[in-house]
């Protein structure tokens, strides 16, 4: 082993020091953790491509939860009333059917608010179910690995005769579902009719801009339609959830077209941030610098791998010389930064990244 100065030897030894932990420790830790929320949460958690889009994620998850729980109630009602439901012709309004079910259902959970909710989830109106589908596009992308959601959707879309087998299939899986508090359902579900039919085509993107390379995921609010996405730089996609990475700075317009209608979204791509620098005084890349005419103002915090803040700056021109505030040179290695930038066009972008320092 090569001899080192004490501090360097320490850093070398301990930077990747990962001793085995006694497995019983986890049991002790987990026993001290408070119990989590309803166990239904993990089931409805989106795990598809879009799950990383945190802004869109919240309402999508919420909508998905409502649809699934709504469907669960509906299915339960169907199974509990048995073949009687099947006699109702497909063309009959959903309300009639619900009212037939209602008296048979003695369960207190399915009191009036739930009843009205079920009317909206009724599959007899194809447009309703179609539009509720389009509200949960992540279900489609993750549908393959979530057969239960898929089955629910199928049953929502299908005619009455196909509901029963699928409902029977679902029964063991969905058994605990009716325990979902009924209170949260009427609150959210009425939003569905508002979105049904004649919804203008609207493009949805996970971001409106950021630093290159910027990956943008676009979809339309009507997933069932054959949408085409033109990313404005020669790239076109017909995927329901279209993803493209912009490598060069610029202003791009993504156009979504479907059924002769169009919707656009502008994307601002800023110059890429440096990923490495070498403060060794050789005159090249000696500072980590953000000096970009398209940035009006930026605020950056840089942290070392131990989580200590090593640099913090705000302004239109930021630079870090690779030293701690007490003048000690920062070590070679990876640093983490958060940047909060306002572009000259007024866009506000937040980015996290890593930075390599070498000498």
């Amino acid at each position: 082993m090569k001899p080192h100065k004490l501090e360097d030897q320490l850093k070398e030894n301990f930077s990747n020091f990962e001793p085995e932990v006694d497995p019983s420790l986890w049991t002790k830790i987990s026993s001290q953790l408070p119990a989590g929320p309803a166990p239904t949460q993990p089931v409805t958690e989106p795990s598809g491509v879009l799950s990383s889009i945190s802004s869109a994620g919240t309402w999508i998850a919420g909508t998905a939860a409502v649809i699934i729980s709504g469907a669960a109630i509906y299915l339960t009602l169907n199974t509990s009333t048995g073949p009687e439901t099947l006699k109702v012709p497909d063309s009959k309004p959903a309300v009639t059917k619900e009212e037939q079910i209602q008296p048979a259902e003695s369960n207190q959970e399915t009191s009036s608010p739930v009843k009205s909710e079920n009317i909206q989830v009724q599959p007899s109106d194809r447009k309703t179910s179609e539009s509720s589908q389009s509200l949960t596009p992540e279900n489609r992308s993750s549908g393959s690995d979530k057969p239960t959601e898929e089955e629910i959707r199928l049953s929502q879309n299908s005619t009455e005769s196909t509901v029963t087998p699928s409902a029977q299939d679902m029964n063991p899986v969905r058994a605990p579902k009716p325990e979902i508090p009924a209170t949260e359902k009427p609150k959210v579900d009425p939003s569905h009719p508002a979105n049904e039919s004649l919804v203008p085509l609207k493009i949805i993107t996970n971001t409106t801009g950021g630093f290159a390379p910027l990956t943008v995921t676009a979809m339309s609010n009507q997933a069932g339609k054959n949408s085409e996405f033109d990313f404005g730089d020669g790239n076109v996609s017909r995927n329901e959830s279209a993803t493209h990475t912009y490598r060069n700075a610029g202003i791009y317009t993504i156009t979504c077209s479907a059924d002769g209608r169009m919707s656009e979204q502008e994307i601002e791509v800023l110059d890429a941030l440096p990923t490495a620098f070498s403060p060794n005084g050789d005159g090249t890349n000696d500072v980590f610098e953000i000096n970009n005419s398209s940035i009006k103002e930026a605020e950056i915090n840089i942290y070392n791998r131990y989580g200590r803040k090593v640099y913090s700056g705000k302004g239109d021109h930021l630079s870090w010389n690779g030293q701690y505030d007490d003048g000690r040179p920062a070590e070679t290695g990876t640093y983490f930064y958060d940047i909060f930038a306002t572009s000259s066009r007024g866009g506000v972008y937040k980015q996290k990244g890593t930075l390599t320092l070498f000498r």
Partner: protein
Amino acid sequence: MSVSNTGGMSEEQLVDGCRKAEPAAQKGLYDRYSRKMFGVCLRYSGNREEAEDLLQEAWVTVFGKISSFKGEGSLEGWIRRIVINTALMHLRQKKIQWVDTDNVPDVIATEMVSLETRDLLLLIQELPEGFRTVFNLYAIEGYSHSEIGNLLGISENTSKSQYSRARAHLMNKVQRLNNAETEK
């Protein structure tokens, strides 16, 4: 956006799951960082049992506070700060006496060391608590003396003198160990 992906869950998904107190996410996060954090605990403790207690307490805090993680810096850094804070809290509870003794060990002939992590850890663990803490904070975590002063409620100068003593202490031990090895 997070790139690392073990066990099929990204760091963001893990954090998200932990915010909802999902056991799988909690276990995932723990599995990812517990060993690294145990390494930190061992450095700040006198022995393994103490380190395990520290690790346990720190993780309970991590899961309790996960909602306040705003993504400033790395998640690992955030967890590490909690671990270190937990260690410092223990130290403060013990009301360490920061004695400015003149008992400075002899000046070390050589500055160069070559040691296995295991041996170095034992030497660090043998240091008196105050020395050990200042030494870890300055030499390994990279805090400045003024920050250490604030963290421990001591003056910057006390931090400096504690550090140089800790360092001399350690170097003495290193030398003794090296001598013992060469005599073998």
